């Protein structure tokens, strides 16, 4: 599960070496971005949809949230 991370006991002193790839657990963190984006903007879309009487804004909000979450993941991974 830690494949890609520094080997057992071979971690650099004083924290993660930025030149090394992230540990696989970052992959698990991506899941929380995707869920977070969909739930948050899905809820916003649902609220606006209720307010304006346009129920299709709920799925649109979810898709927008998913798209933003993917963008967020790309920004975080490609940085550095």
């Amino acid at each position, binding site marked *: *599960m830690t494949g890609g991370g*520094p080997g057992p006991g071979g971690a650099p002193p004083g924290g993660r070496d930025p030149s090394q790839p992230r*540990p696989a*657990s970052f992959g*698990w963190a991506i899941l929380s971005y995707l869920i977070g*984006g969909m739930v948050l903007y899905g809820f916003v879309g649902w609220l606006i949809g209720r307010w304006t009487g346009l129920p299709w804004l709920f799925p649109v909000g979810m898709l927008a949230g998913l798209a933003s979450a993917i963008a967020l993941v790309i*920004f975080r991974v*490609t940085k550095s």
Partner: protein
Amino acid sequence: MSDVAVSMPGCHIFSGCGYPAPSISYFYFKPIFTIGSFQFTKPMLLAIVSAAIVLTFFFVAFRKPKIVPRGAQNLGEMGVLFVRDQILRPQLGKKGDKYLPFLVSIFFFVWIMNVFGIIPLVDFPPTSRIAFPAALAFIVWVTYITIGMKSKGPIGYFREMAIPQGAPWWILPLLAPIELFSNVLVRPFTLTIRLMANMLAGHLLLLVFGLASWYLFSASIGLLYATTSFVLTIILTGLEVLIQALQAFIFTTLTAFYIADATETAH
């Protein structure tokens, strides 16, 4: 034992009785005793036993530590070193060694609770009831938020949790809410649900084939079905052993990752 399991005997295929499919009622227990409105049930007992096992084992193992470890100390050192080298060091490096006791406790507590799912006569993983993973996730949540606020100050920490690194400024209004929402709220939820759902599904799966082996058992072609189902139960028990360890590992790895995320200065 739940009521459904007790009503099981005598129900076989071709006897005009349908398959008593396991349901969520198998996860509810009659209280062992009650104090007022508080009901003490089997999962609570198992959680306490599991904590006692972990405490006793590590107390015995490191009571009189020797340079050349033997017996329980050997095993205990293997466990601690596993958590340190496979979970803690890849995430936090050497400076994270002060979190080792926390991570070791979480790993072994969760693992023992999971393993109760396949121990004969115990046969129930307390982690499949959401309260146990939720309480653990809450402890993890409080821990990493406190560590983050301590190492960066409350404002600095929340600024970092809200503003994703590497994103251009014009998209920040769209992404900052996701970052904050996912860091503060989604993390403990996914931690809880992942552990609970895995243990619940695994326990149900074993129940389905375990009950089917008994239900299909009869002096007919049913014997063949029962054998197949029984073999599957054994194979799936092996799979469960793997998943139980894996879920404890993932829970602890993510805890270490959240702590690392809270202490790292830049992502």
